[in-house]
């Protein structure tokens, strides 16, 4: 995990596209808020692997969003029940219920339904917000951070150099 954090910090502080990190957070939010072993998370997995999304950022995001998802379970349950019981949507649910594909997604589970809807609604706001924050961070905070004495001390420390050499060795 420390490795992921360091990689993430490195990417965060690099010149890479901020949107790659932002997308990683957005996908992590979807996978974290919804039950992990659900069919839709296979799609998330496919997207994070195929699209150039930063995996370290994804795993960090997943670790952050999973407890949040657990915390909001009761709300997801209520929203899911509301949607699944909504009279105007019954035709859709009955259609899906009678389809093998949709049944596999477990859409009829209250928490799956509630959490997927919430995470989809939040996907683009989180994406844009993360992108914006990363850009701001690079423009306004990063330069100041680099000049901090503490950071310079860490970089100059024996432990940090040893860690770097070990990592380089492993990359070889």
């Amino acid at each position, binding site marked *: 995990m420390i490795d992921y954090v360091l990689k993430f910090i490195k990417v965060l502080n690099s010149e890479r596209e901020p949107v790659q990190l932002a997308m990683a957070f957005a996908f992590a939010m979807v996978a974290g808020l919804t*039950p992990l072993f659900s069919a839709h998370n*296979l799609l998330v*997995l*496919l997207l*994070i*692997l*195929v*699209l*150039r999304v930063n995996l370290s950022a994804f795993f960090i995001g997943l670790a952050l969003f999973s407890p949040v998802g*657990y915390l909001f*379970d*009761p709300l*997801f*349950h209520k929203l*899911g*029940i509301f949607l*699944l*019981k909504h009279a105007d949507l*019954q035709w859709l*649910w*009955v259609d899906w*219920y*009678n389809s*093998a594909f949709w*049944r*596999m997604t*477990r859409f*009829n*589970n*209250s*928490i*799956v339904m*509630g959490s997927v809807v919430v995470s989809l609604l939040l996907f683009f706001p989180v994406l844009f917000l993360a992108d914006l924050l990363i850009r701001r961070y690079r423009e306004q905070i990063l330069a100041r951070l680099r000049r901090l004495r503490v950071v310079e001390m860490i970089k100059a420390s024996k432990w940090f150099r040893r860690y770097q050499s070990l990592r380089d060795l492993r990359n070889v």
Partner: protein
Amino acid sequence: MSSMAAINRVVRWPGLLGFLLVVGALLLGTMVFASALVKSAIEYTGTAMVGARVEVGQVDLSLSPLGFHLHGLQVTDPDAPMINAFEIDDIDFFLDTAQLLQMRTVIHEMQMKRLRVKTPRQQSGAILRETPPVETPQAAAGKDNGKLDFPVLQQIDVADIFGREELQSVQHLNRVRAELKQDEDVWSSKVASLPNGHKLEHYRGALAQLKFNSSGNALQDAQQLQKLMDDADKLRGEISADIDNVDAAWRDLRAMVENLRLSLQQFAALPQQDLDRLQAKYSLSAAGLANISDLLFGAKVRDWVSQALAWYVKLMPIFERFENSDSESAPSPRRSRGVDVRFPERGSVPDFLVHRASVSMELQIGKISGEVRNLSSDQSVLGHPLTFNFFSKEMQGVKDIEIVGTLNHVDARHSTDSVSIKARSITARDIGVLKSDQFPLRLAKVEMDLESNVELVGNNIGSKMNVAFRDADFVVPFKSQPGRIAEAMAAALAGVNAFATQITLSGTVGDFGLSVKSDLDELLRKAIGDQVAKAGQELRQKIKAQLDQRIEQPMAQVREQLAKFEELARTSEHQVQELQGMRDQVAARYRELEQSYKAKADAAGDKLRQKTQDEKQGAKDTMRQQKKKLKDEMQDKLGR
């Protein structure tokens, strides 16, 4: 080329391979752990359903066709955690793969081999219940089969009857006594406030003092008379007030005495009613033998029916899952699990379906095999009820047995379940029919044919069972010298070789009633009728004597109290009359005084009138003289 570069900037192609590898690993893992997953799923679901531990020894998976072999399924009896309700050695089934892809478990053929019931467990199968246990159905007139006696043989202790019975007559008398006690308290304070002998003496004295003595002076006489009249008026007022008090008290007393008399009239019929009731209840009449069949077989049948219905209640939720799947409205489902909302299915294949399951059971008394068809979680979707039939010719002591049934929950609101059992030549030996000290009845041997139809419409049970007994050999090994009735009964039963029993079940699943009738009832009634009637008469006499003794003393007390009140009423009535007489005398005296006063007043008036007239004439004369004198003086002056 530039578009490819643009795609490459977004897409990470090795990632696709990574994804395929992850998915492949997942599929492989599922296949490798399928057996463990199925084992775990069966144990988890089964335990939740039964309310006690369900265990599977081993699960083997076959891939083509996709099938499972379950070995050593044990289902704990939730009411006896050290016993398995049933245990199945081997279960083989193949899954319909196409349906499985649509998340449905469809089994066309299932085989259950060596099903055994009530097998011992090595470890307790109890679990911590999350939900309250299902209540075992109870018979409305459930009886303990441990120790039963014929009422007709029980030594009836009259003192014991009076100890536990509430007698209307005694209760009524006690009520009357309590009321009398209250009335007595009220009256003792009331009597104290009423005029007593001293007061009457005082009135007599006061009346005697109302006498006029003339002083010779008319004015003084008038004043004296005026005072005497005032005194008489005051005395009359006092006496009238006392009359009102005594009269009101007397009326109250009369009403109370009347009520008391009425209560005693009502009481008159109660001892007889008590006697009749107690005799009817504890009567040693031959009619009391009408329930002998129930005593003989009822408790055992009730026990069987209770057990069967308890399992029915436990298993029914499986068939009514669709209707009862309202768990989504539960306020707090298990964290991170949520609830699955169900919707109508368009096909005719439910989530879980076993088209045909062949079952072979090995019971203690032999083997029985059969099949279950359309075992399904959603009969409403399938459109067919569950049916089962079992047949055996390999059971000890039974020539053959056939069990056929249907559980129809296609329309769960109008569910109809029925079971028909036919068994021929069931042979039984040395059955303890009655665990009674007075009448330890046993069936040394008997052979019977049984035919039973049980039907459950919704929650209502209707059932008829006919059992024909033959070659019966009743024995009664008395431990001590039997009474005359027990002896007669034993002799009558010894002569019985064949009899028929009809058992009727009615009520609801949770509260059913059982009626057992047989021709033994009539047989015993005839055999011991005379002895029973005689014993009944003896009991009646004993009850009557005891009852009379119980009500004699309180009744005497009530009568004594009544006599006291009646005496008081008479005294009050006499007092009223005496006071009224006194008031009349005072009134007469008042009238006399008034007349005297009037006479004196008239005489004094005449005198006064005469005096006034004389004075008036004198004044007139004086005036006339003065006028004449004045006239003469005027004439003298004018003449001069």
